[in-house]
C-alpha cells in the first residue's frame, strides 16, 4: 500500500495548498483592472525634449531613442504628481515599447488630471538677446533650469496678480546669484515649457527666490506650482490614448462575466457527469480546486484582473476539463479492451499525458509570445492563460489521479461509476487486481 500512502500525501498537500489559497482569497481581495472597476487609463509616448536647454545643439535630432533611465525618471515624477493630486491607488507602468501607461481608478475630471500629469514643466531662465521682426523673443541658452528649485507655491503679488513663487535650493541660489550679478540691466526671460511667461529686467543681484507672472487663474498657478515641485519631466510626452470607463460599465462587465462563468461551470459540470459519471464527479473536484487555486494565486500576485484576463480564465476552464476528458476517454478505451481497472487507469493516465503536455506547451509558447510582445490587455490575457494551463496540469492530472487511485479498490468504483459497460464475461477479471 505504498502507492496509497503517496496518494494520501499528494491529497494532503493539495488540501493544505487549497486551504492557503482560500485563506489568501479572503484576506487579499482580487484587484480589479480599470475596465472592470472603472477609471482612466492613459498611454503616453515619450519623445525627446526639444534641444533648447543647451542652445547649441539645434541640429541634434535624436528622435526615437530615449533612454529607459529617462523614462523611469519620468514615471517617478508622474507618480509623485498623481500623489500630490490626491488620487489613490494609481498605477504607472511601462509597456512593451516604452510607452508609459498610467491608470487612475475613479477620477472626477480625468482630462484635467491627465494634462497635468503629462505636463513637461520645463522651467528655464534665459537672457533676452533681442526681439525679432515677429515680436518674438530671441533668447540665449538656458542658464539655469527648474530642477534646482526647492519649492514652489501659488499666491498673489503686491498688485493682487496671481503668481507662482519659487525658491532655489542652495546650489541653485548660488548659481542664480552669479547669473543675475553678471547680467544686471538685461531682461531675463522665465520660460515654462517653451513659453516666455515674463522677461523682467534684472535690477539687482537675486539669489534665493523669484516669481512667475502672467498666470491666468489661481487654479492654474496651483497646477504650475504642483508640477514645479515635482520637477520637470526629462522627456516630452504625447498622449496616445485616453480611456475612461465609467463605474457602471465596469460593474456590468464584471457581473455578467462572473455570471457567465458560473452558468458555464454548471453546464460543464452537468455535461461531465452525464458523459463520465463518477469519474466526471471526481474531475469536478479537480475543477473546483483549479478555480480555488487560480483565484488564490491571482490574489497573491495582486495582478489586476481585467476583462481579457477573464476571457483567459474562461478559456482555460475548457483546457482544465480537457485534460480529464482525454484521460477518461483513454481509461474507458482501455477498459473496453478488457483490461483490469488498475491497469486501465494506469494506461489511461499514461497514454493521455503526452497529448496533454504537448497541447499545453504549444499554448504556453503562444502565451509567452503574447506576454513579451502584447499590449496591456493582451498581456493580462497571456498571464491568465499561462497560469490556467499550468495550474490545470496539477489539478486535472495529479490531484484527480490521486483521488481516483485512492478510490480504486473501494466498492463505489463500479463499472457504472466509471461509465463503461463491461461484457459480463470479463467482470471476474476486473476484480482480480490489487
Amino acid at each position: 500500500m505504498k502507492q496509497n500512502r503517496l496518494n494520501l500525501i499528494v491529497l494532503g498537500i493539495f488540501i493544505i495548498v487549497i486551504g492557503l489559497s482560500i485563506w489568501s482569497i479572503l484576506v487579499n481581495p482580487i484587484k480589479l483592472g480599470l475596465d472592470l472597476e472603472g477609471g482612466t487609463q492613459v498611454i503616453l509616448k515619450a519623445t525627446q525634449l526639444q534641444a533648447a536647454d543647451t542652445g547649441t545643439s539645434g541640429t541634434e535630432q535624436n528622435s526615437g531613442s530615449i533612454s529607459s533611465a529617462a523614462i523611469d525618471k519620468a514615471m517617478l515624477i508622474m507618480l509623485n504628481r498623481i500623489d500630490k493630486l490626491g488620487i489613490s491607488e494609481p498605477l504607472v507602468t511601462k509597456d512593451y515599447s516604452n510607452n508609459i501607461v498610467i491608470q487612475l481608478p475613479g477620477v472626477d475630471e480625468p482630462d484635467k488630471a491627465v494634462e497635468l500629469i503629462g505636463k513637461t514643466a520645463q522651467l528655464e531662465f534665459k537672457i533676452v538677446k533681442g526681439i525679432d521682426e515677429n515680436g518674438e523673443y530671441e533668447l540665449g541658452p538656458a542658464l539655469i533650469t527648474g530642477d534646482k528649485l526647492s519649492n514652489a507655491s501659488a499666491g498673489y503679488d503686491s498688485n493682487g496678480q496671481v503668481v507662482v513663487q519659487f525658491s532655489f535650493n542652495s546650489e541653485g541660489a548660488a548659481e542664480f546669484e552669479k547669473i543675475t550679478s553678471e547680467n544686471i540691466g538685461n531682461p531675463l526671460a522665465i520660460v515654462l515649457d517653451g513659453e516666455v511667461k515674463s522677461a523682467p529686467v534684472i535690477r539687482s543681484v537675486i539669489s534665493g527666490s523669484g516669481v512667475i507672472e502672467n498666470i491666468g487663474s489661481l487654479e492654474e498657478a496651483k497646477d504650475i506650482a504642483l508640477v514645479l515641485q515635482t520637477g520637470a519631466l526629462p522627456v516630452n510626452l504625447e498622449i496616445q490614448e485616453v480611456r475612461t470607463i465609467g463605474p457602471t460599465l465596469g460593474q456590468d462587465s464584471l457581473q455578467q462575466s462572473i455570471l457567465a462563468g458560473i452558468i458555464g461551470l454548471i453546464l460543464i459540470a452537468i455535461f461531465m457527469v452525464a458523459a463520465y459519471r463518477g469519474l466526471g464527479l471526481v474531475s469536478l473536484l479537480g475543477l473546483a480546486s483549479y478555480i480555488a487555486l487560480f483565484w488564490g494565486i491571482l490574489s497573491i500576485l495582486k495582478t489586476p484582473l481585467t476583462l481579457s484576463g477573464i476571457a483567459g480564465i474562461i478559456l482555460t476552464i475548457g483546457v482544465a476539463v480537457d485534460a480529464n476528458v482525454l484521460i477518461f476517454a483513454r481509461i474507458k478505451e482501455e477498459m473496453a479492451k478488457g483490461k483490469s481497472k488498475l491497469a486501465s487507469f494506469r494506461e489511461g493516465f499514461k497514454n493521455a499525458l503526452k497529448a496533454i503536455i504537448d497541447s499545453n506547451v504549444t499554448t504556453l509558447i503562444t502565451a509567452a509570445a503574447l506576454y513579451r510582445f502584447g499590449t496591456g490587455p493582451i498581456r493580462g490575457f497571456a498571464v491568465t492563460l499561462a497560469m490556467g494551463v499550468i495550474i490545470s496540469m496539477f489539478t486535472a492530472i495529479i490531484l484527480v489521479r490521486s483521488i481516483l487511485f485512492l478510490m480504486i479498490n473501494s466498492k463505489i468504483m463500479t463499472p457504472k461509476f466509471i461509465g463503461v459497460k463491461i461484457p459480463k464475461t470479463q467482470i471476474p477479471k476486473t476484480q482480480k487486481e490489487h
Partner: protein
Amino acid sequence: MATGKPTVTDRSYKFDFVGKGKIWFIVSTVIILAGTVMFFVRGFNYGIDFLGGNLLEVKFKQEISVTELRKVMEETGYGKAILQSTASDQYIIRTVPITTQEKTRIIDSLDKKIGIIKPLVQDRNVAAGFSKQIIKYTLIAVAISIAGILIYVWIRFEVRFALVAIFEMLHDLFIVLSFYTITYREFNTTSIAVILTILGYSLNDGIVIFDRIREEIRINKKEKFSDLVNYSVNKTLARTLTTGTMTLFPIIVILIIGNETLKDFAVGLLIGIISGSYSSIFIGSPLIVAWNNRFQKYKK
C-alpha cells in the same frame, strides 16, 4: 466499440475524414476567398483604435431616437459622428480625434438639450498613429508563436506534423479575419486579442489528434497511413467534440447575457474555437495524408 471480441488490431472507423478532405478544403477556401474579396472591396470596419478618434458612450436621462440624437449632434457641429445605440437611452458616439475642449462642448450640449447621466459610461480618445505600434507588435507576436510552435512540434513529432500544425493555425487566423471582413464587424484591439487567443488555442485539438497518430504509427507500422489517420481522428472525435462544446458553454452564455464589450470578445472566440476544432479534424488530417502521398519517403 465494445463488440464481442475487441482486439488491439481492430482499426475500423466510422467516418472517412481523409477521403472527404477535398470538400472541406473547398469549403474553407470559399470562406477565406470571400473574406479576401471583401477585404479588397470594403476592407475592415476599423474602430477608433486603428483610425484614431474619439468615442463617447453616454446614458441619457430619457429615451431618445437616433434621428433626434443626430439632430442634436448636427446642431453641435458634429453631424458626421457615428451613432450606435447600446440601449434605448444609451448611445456610443464616435467622432474624429477631438481636443478636450471640443469634447467638453459636445458633452455640455448633449446635457443641455437632452440631459445625460454622469459620469459617462465610457470615453476614449486615440491618437491617429497609435495603431501602427499595435499592428507591429501583434505581427511580431504572431511570428514568434508560429516559429516557436513550428520548432516544438518538429522536435516532439516530425516536420510534416509541424508544417500541418502551422497550416491549421494560419487557416484559423484567416477564417477569423474573413469573419471580420465578411460581417463588417468592427475591428479593434479586442479583435486583435481574439486573434491572438485563437492562435494559442486553435492547435489544442490538432495536437491531440497528432498525438494519437504518433501513437498508432508506433503500434502498427504496416497499416496504410490514411487509415491510421482516419482511425485516430475517429478515436479522438468524442474528446474533440466534448471539449469543444464545454469550452463554448461560457462563451455562449456571454453572447446571451453580456454587454457589447463582452459580446465583442465572445463572438470572435466563438468563431475561432469552432474553426480550431473544424480545422483539426477536417483540414489537418487530410492534409497530413496528402503530404505523405506526395513524398516518397513516407509512402506505404
